[in-house]
């Protein structure tokens, strides 16, 4: 049986133009959803793991992270 994928609770998007690559969202995501890309911007690596905890949006100093609830 294939591994059951977790259902994400929220959809997270990064506004690349505003992201300054500080890495704070990556540090505060408890599920490893986010990672730094090679060009030093945050990117969504494992979207299905998102629990919708809200940390990334609240900790980003640049208003570059946006969450949307998934019903």
């Amino acid at each position, binding site marked *: 049986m294939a591994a059951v994928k977790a259902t994400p609770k929220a959809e997270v998007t990064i506004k690349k133009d505003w992201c300054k690559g*500080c890495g704070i969202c990556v540090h505060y995501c408890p599920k490893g959803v986010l990672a730094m890309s090679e060009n030093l911007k945050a990117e969504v690596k494992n979207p299905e793991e998102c629990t919708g905890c*809200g940390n990334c*949006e*609240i*900790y*980003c100093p640049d208003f*570059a992270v946006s969450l949307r609830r998934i019903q």
Partner: protein
Amino acid sequence: MLQINVENLRMQKLPHIWCPGCGNGIALSALTRAIDKLGYDHDEVAIVSGIGCSSRSPGYLNFNTLHTTHGRAIAFATGLKIFKPKMKVFIVTGDGDCTAIGGNHFIHAARRNIDLNVILFNNNIYGMTGGQASPMTPFGRTATTAPYGTVERNFDIMELAKAAGATFCGRATAAHPRLIESLIVKAAQNKGFSVVEAMLPCPIGFGRRNKLGGPVEMMKYLEENSVRVQKAQKMSEEELKGKFVIGEFYNKPAPEYIEEYDKIIAKLKK
């Protein structure tokens, strides 16, 4: 955004000018969320600042805003509040702005217990002018004006505010953004002079010179060395060395300046 109301921001002014990992953005975000929770109309909120990196905040906020002169945010805010007592006034000020050049305004506004909310963006340094020591640079830390470490002891703004007469005092760090938010809500609910200190990383002006690492390391440092007020009360002075106590420090009402003034006016009009 789920938790941040973009109507509280001047989106056309973003992205902001602050450096990567600057804690100002975290505190600014907390302030917008707190105002949202308080349910105020945009028109009844005023944000007043002095000069500094942190004092650029009002430019990004979609309320009545006033970016004044260095150290004088509280003086302008006092005038505004007396003229428009219904206005909910939030002052965004840096540690230099508030406790060096603006120190006297601070203590006397506290003494009067005028209904203002000071949100002190404490990054331990003069960020905007390139890293000079402020009265809140911790003893021994390096600054351009203290290349071998400052020999001055720093203010504890919670103690100072309380001693001067503030009626609400609380402290949080960038690593505790939800606490910054809830303290601002309580500060606004207090009818009197309220102080919320937000300890924030300045990776460029303070962290780099003091070899504190990048933004994430500075956040971890704040996280790991913070102790809640309730826990701190059970700890010895020795155990508390190098720790930051966070939470609500003081919340006790006292006669408020404008209300007392109005009583005199009413009495004399009789």
